[in-house]
């Protein structure tokens, strides 16, 4: 699903954000990526999303060589992924319904399919009653669920979540990850970046720890400490 082969990323200011990272994530996996801030987690995400290209090495996502993508191919590549951000990134002047429908409109889905699919996805994340609300009228947790619905609506085989719980109350954080968990059970690969160790420890999933641009630990909670 995702394959990093000796990937390094050096920024123009000389910062070595990733240093020879090799990582393999299989289809259907749920992986937490942890590490302190500045460790290189964000860079990892940016590379997967093709916001940036690696300085050296090769990245494959969904069997596609991301670094070699042409500019006009990028939008089509991104449609195969669902992305969730820490700051939700909802369009403020669009209703919940329109925010989710937007992801479908972008990909040329017919109005008929949009009308069928959006309510279904909204009910899946438990927001069927909020379709007409605007983003600023609902709570942070609800906004993140809208973002999740938007990521899901295209039926992607991979969901990337960048600190999805960073801006919401701890008690609601569990709900979000649980939702991701449910999605994962249906076969969708999930990669979630976080620095909340408490949250990670509540789920039995693979954990990849990154420090100073390198993978320093990789395994489940049980084997996590053993490998360190």
């Amino acid at each position: 699903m995702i394959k990093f082969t000796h990937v390094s990323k050096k920024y123009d200011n000389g910062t070595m954000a990733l240093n020879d990272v090799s990582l393999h994530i299989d289809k259907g996996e749920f992986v937490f990526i942890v590490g302190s801030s500045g460790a290189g987690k964000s860079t990892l995400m940016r590379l997967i999303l093709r916001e940036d290209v690696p300085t050296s090495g090769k990245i494959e996502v969904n069997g596609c060589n991301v670094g070699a993508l042409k500019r006009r191919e990028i939008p089509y590549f991104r449609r195969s992924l669902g992305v969730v951000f820490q700051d939700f990134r909802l369009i403020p002047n669009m209703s919940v319904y329109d925010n989710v429908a937007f992801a479908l409109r972008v990909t040329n889905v017919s109005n008929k399919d949009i009308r069928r699919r959006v309510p279904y996805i909204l009910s899946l994340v438990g927001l069927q009653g909020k379709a007409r609300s605007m983003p600023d009228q609902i709570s942070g947790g609800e906004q993140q669920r809208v973002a999740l619905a938007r990521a899901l609506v295209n039926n992607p085989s991979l969901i990337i979540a960048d600190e999805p719980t960073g801006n919401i109350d701890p008690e609601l954080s569990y709900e979000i990850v649980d939702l991701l968990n449910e999605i994962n059970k249906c076969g969708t690969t999930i990669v979630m970046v976080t620095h909340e160790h408490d949250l990670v420890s509540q789920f039995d999933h693979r954990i990849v720890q990154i420090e100073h641009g390198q993978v320093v630990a990789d395994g489940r909670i049980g084997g996590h400490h053993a490998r360190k």
Partner: protein
Amino acid sequence: MRGSSFGYLLREGARNIYANRLMSLASIGVLIACLLLVGSSILFTLNVNSLVGYVESQNEVVIFLADGAESDLIDDIDRQLQAIENIDDVVFISKEQGLEEWIDSMDNASGLFDGLYSDNILPNSFRVKIKDLSQIDQTIAQIDSMNGVDSVSAPIEVAQTVTSLKQAVNTGGSAMVLLLVIVAAVIIANTIKITVFNRRKEISIMKFVGATDTFIRLPFIVEGFLLGLISAMVAFGLLWGGYTALLSWLTDNTAGWFTMAVEHMVVFKDIALPLFGSFAAAGIGIGTLGSMLFVRKYLKV
């Protein structure tokens, strides 16, 4: 792209104007102000030109013929004068007509000159009008060289003044319009930049959901187009109303020669169509092109 998507993008562009109404209002305001400035300076230049043109058309050149010119020669000179490109309105004034006009102009004293009827000292003459005063020297030289022409009296100084005035107005007017266009372009470019900058987040979201560049750009272009069109229409309406009001005020409140000048001001209706055409073209062009140009910057995510 399917039809429903295209329709959606058009609607989206129109909706964005309302959704970002404060910024839309600012853009429309700036665009209107610029169009008004440029429009007024165009109107001003046109009017000064028209007034100078009126003064120009009032010129008169008198050609005195040599004594004893036979009617054959007079006819010949008439034909030659008609043939000159730069001459309008050739009128022959015979000795007798000339004398009568002269004596008439003496009012009460006219009786003193009765004796002249028997011994007319005035020559035969032609009165002509010059079309283009800047060419007056050549035309006079041409007339002077004709056989049977004694002398030519022409308003050379007036011609020079009018010609240089016309030149000054044209250069000054064009320079002013050009300057205003440049200033307007800079202001408008900045306004559009701010508008797009305000929505860079929206653009980046679109990119992450997998929108193609065309898909992101189209609503902005529609928006720019509509804003330009609205501004052009409002600016045109304001200019029309303002100018018509000014004209009627001037007609009611002026006296003397100035009234005549007002009568020769440009009628708005005569220039309405080309003016609206250029307003619409400028507004729409700036709006559309501006959005295209500045959105591009934020597409590189």
